[in-house]
């Protein structure tokens, strides 16, 4: 019986292909959105955890905000204070950063100038391509030396041989800095970037670029045996108690995970709203098309009843038709949702992680919508009077 009903359902869909497709649009969009939500959620989670485990997880950055509390607290000595106050910290480095114009002969570029301690490169496993990072003496003596990130080096010295040359760094006036090293290219560690930076000794930076003692930012590395997310939380708690949470920004792996979570959840909520509306509209579309189908086939229903179909038989036939219809919609929805997921993951360069459970959910949703919105038209068909239906023109 069910099998016959399914065959009937598909044969009546085939009669009106365009109409069928249009009536399924809502279901297709709704199911597509559900599949996309789950697939993208899956892919996002997988990509975030893989990028976290790829490294950089152990870094926490602190950015003091302007304000009296901040400027009193966040000086160079704070590195030691923080390290001794919070467990699980390997080292804390002060970093000052500003944007400047850089020139070598005719070539100019804008770069991030970073004043860092001389052990910055060693501690962050940042290796030199040519020359070396500046020394402790360079820092103590506030020498005008610099080290170029690989992008900057390529831009100003396309032919190489930067080491030993001079570049001009503009602030209020141009100053000449001798290049002592060019660094290898390095992927960002969380929020810490490398290749588009120029590094100068911390003390040189403070003298030349900065009148205040407040440190621009701190780079914290957590100990290998500590959970970086927990250390991040401890630092947050410590700083909140010390200066209040408005006095600084903190960037940790937890922040990253939270950020991606909030991005994906915004996205998911958006898609879920689309899904809910589309499924409702789609369901009403199904109901509408089924009511049309019932009235078009009134005579058929009369004939079937004359041949011995019970009300329940008729009900079964039309419910099956509605469910078959929504299942076809669900199938197209899965195709559309997967296509959207492929496109979006490509766009934001995540790896696609197909959510097979979303397919099952999609099929289930389609079935429920078919049952729910097909029920009323089917009942209407079942309750038609046989004689009136037979005489229906």
């Amino acid at each position, binding site marked *: 019986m069910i099998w016959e009903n399914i065959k009937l359902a598909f044969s009546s869909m085939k009669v009106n292909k365009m109409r069928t497709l249009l009536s399924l649009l809502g279901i297709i969009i709704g199911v597509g959105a559900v599949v996309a939500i789950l697939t993208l959620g899956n892919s996002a989670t997988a990509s975030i955890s893989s990028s976290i485990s790829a490294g950089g997880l152990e870094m926490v950055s602190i950015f003091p905000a302007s304000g009296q509390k901040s400027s009193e607290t966040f000086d160079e000595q704070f590195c030691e204070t923080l390290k001794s106050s919070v467990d699980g910290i390997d080292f804390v480095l002060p970093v000052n950063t500003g944007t400047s114009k850089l020139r070598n002969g005719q070539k100019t570029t804008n770069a991030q100038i970073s004043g860092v301690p001389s052990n910055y490169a060693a501690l962050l496993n940042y290796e030199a391509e040519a020359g070396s990072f500046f020394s402790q003496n360079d820092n103590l003596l506030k020498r005008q030396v610099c080290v170029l990130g690989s992008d900057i080096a390529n831009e100003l010295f396309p032919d190489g041989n930067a080491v030993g040359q001079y570049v001009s760094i503009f602030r209020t006036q141009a100053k000449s800095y001798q290049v002592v090293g060019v660094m290898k290219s390095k992927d960002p560690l969380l929020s810490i970037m490398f290749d588009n930076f120029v590094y100068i000794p911390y003390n040189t930076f403070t003298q030349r670029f900065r009148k205040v003692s407040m440190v621009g930012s701190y780079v914290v590395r957590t100990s290998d045996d500590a959970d970086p997310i927990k250390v991040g939380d401890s630092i947050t708690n410590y700083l909140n108690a010390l200066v209040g949470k408005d006095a600084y920004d903190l960037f940790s792996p937890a922040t990253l995970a939270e950020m991606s979570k909030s991005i994906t959840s915004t996205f998911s909520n958006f898609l879920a709203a689309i899904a809910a509306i589309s499924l409702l509209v789609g369901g009403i579309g199904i109901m509408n098309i089924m009511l049309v189908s019932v009235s078009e086939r009134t005579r058929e229903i009369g*004939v*079937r009843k*004359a*041949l*011995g179909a*019970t009300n329940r038989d008729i009900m079964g036939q039309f419910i099956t038709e509605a469910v078959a219809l929504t299942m076809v919609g669900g199938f197209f929805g899965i195709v559309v949702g997967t296509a959207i997921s492929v496109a979006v993951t490509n766009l934001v360069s995540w790896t696609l992680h197909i959510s097979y459970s979303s397919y099952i959910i999609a099929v289930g949703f389609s079935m429920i919508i078919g049952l729910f919105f097909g029920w009323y038209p089917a009942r209407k068909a079942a309750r038609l009077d046989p004689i009136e239906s037979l005489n229906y023109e």
Partner: protein
Amino acid sequence: MSGNSVIEMVDVRRYFIVGDFVVKALDGITMDIRQGEFVSIMGPSGSGKSTMMNMIGCLDRPTSGIIRIDGTNTTEFSERDLAYVRNEKIGFVFQQFNLLGKLSALDNVMTPLLYARISPRERKEIAIEALERVGLGERMKHRPNELSGGQKQRVAIARALVNNPSLILADEPTGALDTKTGNQIMELFEQLNAEGRTIVLVTHNRELGMACRRQILIRDGRLED
């Protein structure tokens, strides 16, 4: 004519209320039809012939009176039980054929067996047999729109036969056919009757009606003798 009573009607009335009027489509019909009979119901238009067929065929219920089919009173039957009676005991043939347009001749003939919950294999066997009986063994895969009027009516007759019903009800089965094809269909009914089937036929055509063994004349919802 000594068979058991297939249909028995006792003072059957069917009133329709139309606005302020009561239309007495059947107004106290008492009669019976026995197994193996070939009966024609004749009367002027609007006399109540179709209404009577609907009563016999369990498509409609009487306002009052008793209808027995194979000795069973159906007046108190539920909707579902009436469907079973239609399926098991009645075979309908309509003036407008009423084939299911999307289905092949074979699928049309198989439909009553579907509702009788007969297995697919048996369904097919029995339906093929019925189609062969009406001379359409070659046209089984054809859809109704690929068949002539006479062929359509043969498919309809095969469909009426296929459940081996107690009686076949035909409401003006030749009404939509030309004389020659109509006569062929009548011939088929006569053969089926000769094989022992009980047939009730509504017709306007006096000639066809008189050819049946027995006539029931009806006027204004009452029997005439």
